[in-house]
């Protein structure tokens, strides 16, 4: 029968490889016309031809969740179970990006942890565009490295629950993997050297840096841009994206790194996403720590204000230790800033935040004190409101 797995195939994760795709989705694929027409009697060679014809990736779409041809081909690969060499060839090939993604997806489903990291991480350097079909039926733009990132960090992609793999730092401590080396590392080292040279000229630059802070960029980036105008365009792009990815997350801009170093280190170790972050941070700590010490007197206040607006978690710790100072120094002005900054239900711990929110809401005191109603007298409703807040919905009326 056409839907049976190849009898010579090994079982994956203790079960028929086709069972990696769950029952409902599997039935949908078997009933799909693309599967019935094109995927009948495919072998590894003919599968490559079909894969080259792919032009989008995705899971299921539409009201009755129709699977994409990409899904059907993944299923076919699970059914015939090609050799590892073939899959690696799929990944290594440079010409057809959808063949690459197909191979990467299959390896993520069936490969061992070490293999997954070893073969998928080089694909981070591929920044080509991909077309992705969304569940609503529309197409969206994504990139190869974004998809790989999703495969390595999330546990659900293209409507298939990805098997659990060990976190990277676990494998590093076990010694099976080496710490991650990014391709951009050489560039970072050069940039560091330049920064060190710049710090000697320090003072003149501070005027510059002030502007940088206000614009919300890291000083390194500004300096990069000035100095590297004639560098490869595409490397700039990688920079920007890498910087965005790194700096936009909770890590922060390295301003009071020396203070939060211990805390950050522990936190970062626990997080799986910061695979390469340890490296960057170790290096950054040396540089930024030094720089900041000098600037501290000068720009301490302004930086705090800015950091509070931008970084959530960092200011969280800072507000606790420094709330008195800030109140004395800045009084009403800083309160105003706080009211303008975005708040989230999670940030109820800081005394500042509650103070500013309750002031405008004092008129509505007859209703719940907190915005999302999680302190409603009826415990059931309070519970429901807490769930709703975690999902991002407004409280019950």
């Amino acid at each position, binding site marked *: 029968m056409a839907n049976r797995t190849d009898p010579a195939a090994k079982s994956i994760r203790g079960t028929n490889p086709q069972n990696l795709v769950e029952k409902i989705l599997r039935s949908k694929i078997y009933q799909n016309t693309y599967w019935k027409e094109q995927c009948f009697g495919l072998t590894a060679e003919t599968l490559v031809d079909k894969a080259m014809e792919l032009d989008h990736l995705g899971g299921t779409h539409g009201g009755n969740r129709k699977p994409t041809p990409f899904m059907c081909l993944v299923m076919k690969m699970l059914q015939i179970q090609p050799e590892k060499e073939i899959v690696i060839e799929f990944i290594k090939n440079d010409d057809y990006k959808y063949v690459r993604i197909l191979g990467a997806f299959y390896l993520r489903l069936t490969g061992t942890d070490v293999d997954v990291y070893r073969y998928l991480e080089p694909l981070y350097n591929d920044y080509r565009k991909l077309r992705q079909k969304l569940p609503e039926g529309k197409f969206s733009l994504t990139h190869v490295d974004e998809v790989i990132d999703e495969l390595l960090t999330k546990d659900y992609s293209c409507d298939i629950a990805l098997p659990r793999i060990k976190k990277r730092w676990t494998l590093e401590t076990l010694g099976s993997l080496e710490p991650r080396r990014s391709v951009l590392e050489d560039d970072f080292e050069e940039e560091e050297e330049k920064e060190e040279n710049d710090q000697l000229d320090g003072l003149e630059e501070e005027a510059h840096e002030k502007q940088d802070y206000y614009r919300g960029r890291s000083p390194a980036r500004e300096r990069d841009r000035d100095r590297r105008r004639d560098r490869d365009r595409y490397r700039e792009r990688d920079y920007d994206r890498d910087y965005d990815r790194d700096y936009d997350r909770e890590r922060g801009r390295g301003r009071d790194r020396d203070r939060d170093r211990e805390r950050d280190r522990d936190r970062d170790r626990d997080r799986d996403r910061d695979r390469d972050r340890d490296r960057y941070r170790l290096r950054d700590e040396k540089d930024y720590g030094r720089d900041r010490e000098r600037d501290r007197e000068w720009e301490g206040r302004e930086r705090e204000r800015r950091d509070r607006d931008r970084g959530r978690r960092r200011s969280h710790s800072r507000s606790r230790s420094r709330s008195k100072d800030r109140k004395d120094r800045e009084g009403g002005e800083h309160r105003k800033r706080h009211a303008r900054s975005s708040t989230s239900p999670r940030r109820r711990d800081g005394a500042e935040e509650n103070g500013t929110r309750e002031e405008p809401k004092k008129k509505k005191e007859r209703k719940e004190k907190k915005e999302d109603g999680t302190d409603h007298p009826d415990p*059931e409703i309070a519970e429901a409101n807490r769930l709703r807040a975690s999902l991002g919905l407004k409280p019950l009326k």
Partner: protein
Amino acid sequence: MIEVVLNDRLGKKVRVKCNEDDTIGDLKKLVAAQTGTRSDKIRIQKWYNVYKDHITLKDYEIHDGMGLELYYN
């Protein structure tokens, strides 16, 4: 605030409290939180009408205590 009952006829019967102006997509998220399935795997129907994600409960005239059918994608 209304309470809607969702039944999948296979043993899962779920009562969910929600607002009338919540969309079906929000309702699916609440159901997913209670049942443990993913919200995009859930399909809410009434006889053969599959309810769409972007329309509110009020527009579908779903009232308090009404029963809906829970299916999976």
